[in-house]
């Protein structure tokens, strides 16, 4: 669904308090969650009877998938599963009887996560919190709260790691159990499952993707480490140290007068620039893609076949051979740039110019390109060589420059650098583009290559390969 470009006036940046790079994504998901839970337009959330008990506040996976297909304009159930699984993996919905957070299009029962536990609150729970949680689970004598194998292993590990403060953790766990007991039975069932889902996100089952992992480039920018480090259970712990990855960000300095003056200078140059009309710009984009569509293997089936699909490297062999294919020769005719980009195209163009005794322009252009790639230490000497060869009085390969460019270049050579010949090179390029290049395209040399029957050419190459293989 194409969206029209937004007005670029406001430099809209996310609210500075919303530091997480995922905040925009979270808000979008929360929109969907809110709609899903809507009393009239959402999914039917009900209590399901099972054996001796009731399961409160659940919805089936297929109900969610159906709702998404209807309300989010999705045709393919696989796409609904994909989006739903992403929402589940972040912890906004969860299966009540599984630690693995995916969405299934069947009767599996799901519950909605409490907003307190939403990822948009930027939770980064410490291991002390996790230890309190696992410890608490072992205190409550209920089969539904029994630890899974990996949780038991985690608990054992934490007991070793926190050996010295285990008493503290145990007390906190006891306190939590007391608080929980005060709540209504049904409410507790729901809260317990939501709490478990929270830990499934932050301490996932081994083998599951941890969706809370952040790109380390973004970690360092979290502006308020204090806020992020808050405890799930309200535990105040002074002993833990700041993560080395969380560095306090630099205070953004107020714009100085110099900054604003610089900006004004910049804005003035921008204002002077001539803006091209949208229609013209769109037209050139369309023309370009149209011209190159035949050369785009993702859109046009290549000939010979794409080696990745056919397991046949003929295409690459042809490209590497000195014998250019007809489409390749045709591309040289698109622009001077294309002819010069292709080493074989360059060679052919040069050969043509040599036959006309007018190769010094191209040789100069090539020499300057080479100069720009040289290590700094070689630049000065090489620049002088180029001056002597092409521009000095009595130069062996004298090129024709307008007096203005000649003067500028001569000045530049007093302190030679990589870009000393930029003016001259631009001038020579324009010359070639308007004069020798069009002549080359009309020449027999080029036309012969272009009109050579493609079949004949590739047959020759294939035969050659065959010959080589049999010898």
């Amino acid at each position: 669904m194409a969206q029209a470009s937004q007005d670029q006036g406001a430099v809209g940046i996310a609210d500075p308090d919303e530091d997480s790079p995922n905040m925009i994504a979270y808000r979008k998901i929360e929109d969907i969650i809110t709609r899903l839970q809507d009393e009239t337009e959402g999914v039917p959330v009900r209590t399901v009877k099972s054996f001796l008990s009731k399961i409160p506040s659940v919805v089936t996976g297929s109900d969610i998938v159906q709702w998404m297909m209807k309300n989010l304009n999705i045709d393919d159930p696989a796409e609904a599963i994909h989006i739903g699984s992403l929402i589940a993996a972040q912890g906004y919905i969860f299966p009540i009887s599984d630690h693995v957070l995916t969405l299934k299009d069947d009767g599996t029962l799901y519950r909605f996560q409490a907003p307190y536990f939403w990822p948009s609150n930027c939770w980064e729970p410490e291991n002390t919190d996790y230890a309190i949680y696992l410890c608490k689970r072992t205190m409550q004598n209920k089969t539904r709260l029994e630890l899974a194998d990996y949780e038991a292993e985690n608990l054992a590990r934490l007991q070793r790691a926190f050996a010295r403060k285990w008493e503290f953790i145990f007390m906190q766990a006891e306190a939590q159990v007391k608080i929980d007991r005060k709540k209504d039975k049904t409410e507790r069932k729901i809260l317990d499952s939501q709490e478990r889902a929270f830990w499934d996100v932050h301490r996932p089952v081994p083998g599951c993707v941890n969706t809370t992992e952040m790109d380390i480039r973004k970690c360092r920018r979290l502006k308020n480490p204090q806020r992020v480090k808050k405890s799930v259970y309200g535990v105040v712990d002074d002993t833990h140290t700041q993560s080395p990855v969380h560095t306090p960000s630099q205070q953004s300095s107020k714009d100085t007068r110099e900054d604003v003056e610089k900006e004004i200078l910049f804005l003035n140059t921008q204002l002077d620039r001539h803006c091209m009309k949208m229609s013209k710009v769109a037209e050139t984009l369309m023309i370009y893609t149209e011209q190159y569509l035949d050369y785009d293997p993702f859109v046009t089936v290549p000939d010979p076949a794409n080696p990745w699909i056919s397991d046949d490297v003929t295409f690459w062999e042809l490209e590497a051979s000195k014998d250019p294919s007809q489409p390749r020769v045709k591309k040289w005719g698109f622009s001077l740039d294309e002819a010069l980009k292709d080493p074989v195209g360059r060679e052919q163009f040069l050969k043509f110019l040599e036959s006309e005794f007018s190769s010094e322009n191209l040789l100069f252009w090539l020499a300057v390109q080479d100069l720009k790639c040289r290590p700094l230490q070689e630049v000065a000497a090489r620049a002088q060589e180029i001056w002597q060869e092409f521009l000095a009085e009595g130069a062996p390969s004298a090129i024709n420059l307008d007096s203005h460019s000649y003067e500028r270049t001569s000045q530049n050579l007093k302190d030679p650098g990589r870009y000393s010949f930029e003016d001259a090179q631009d001038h020579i390029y324009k010359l070639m583009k308007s004069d020798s290049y069009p002549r080359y395209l009309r020449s027999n040399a080029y036309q012969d290559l272009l009109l050579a029957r493609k079949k004949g050419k590739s047959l020759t190459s294939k035969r050659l390969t065959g010959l080589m293989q049999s010898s």
Partner: protein
Amino acid sequence: MSELEQLRQEAEQLRNQIRDARKACNDSSLSQITAGLDSVGRIQMRTRRTLRGHLAKIYAMQWATDSRLLVSASQDGKLIIWDSYSTNKIHAIPLRSSWVMTCAYAPSGSYAACGGLDNICSIYSLKTREGNVRVTRELSGHTGYLSCCRFLDDSQIVTSSGDTTCALWDIETGQQTTTFTGHTGDVMSLSLSPDSRTFVSGACDASSKLWDIRDGMCRQSFTGHVSDINAVIFFPNGNAFTTGSDDATCRLFDLRADQELMMYSHDNINCGITSVAFSKSGRLLLAGYDDFNCNVWDTLKGERAGVLAGHDNRVSCLGISSDGMALATGSWDSFLRIWN
């Protein structure tokens, strides 16, 4: 009114004038103009190769110019040079710092580079006389992490950094030839223009800037995104570029129109973009997302043309070979996939 206030007002007036000038050029929109264009149809690509060998998240990759070799960098502390066609590892280079965030392949094929939390861009020679791979230069100078690096040629490399600057280095002397300052947030990515005279950068200040390599000046600045820009790539003709952001959109900006042409987004896409690339003709835009998928967009019409699913964790990097034959994706699931 203080002098600073007056200056600020002047800047604001100029910004408004520029905005009006841009509006005046808006005689149509790209999607309106391409409404009648033939759609590219459904693009379906399959995984042709899976490159296994990394042991941790892959953060970056780049194709060599021969369209077969590629380099990848992972937080397992290794740089691997692959022959992607045969899936053989040509080199497995142990890094001094495992917190690597970017890697690059020189156009000549003789060098690779990488860097990350160490703030250094390390240059590796791949074709030493002894046959082994070794560090030939460590380019230090940035005061923040190295987010991206791209070789201009064997002598020069451009880097972008978390210290909000970009730099052009002369590899031989190890010096910063030019520094590019102006961004107010971490610079996350850069892309060289096809003619190597300019490059575009994307940063966490939600802006992208066009820089002149020769004189270090910022030529143009583009706004529109509302969150970090994670990736930028030039359109093949060098007149436009696309950015990918945490705001779940990709946007196409044109240099001559000096503004945004198209936004690639969908209500059902609820996660950030990590990487972007164009197909050979530019007609298709490939983007890697946090939700483990890649989406294929019709650049001109703005419609989604396909989805590539297969990775088990976020797609962190992707690139198209120079002959346009293959797309390589790298993921936090530690695998690279080759698609077409």
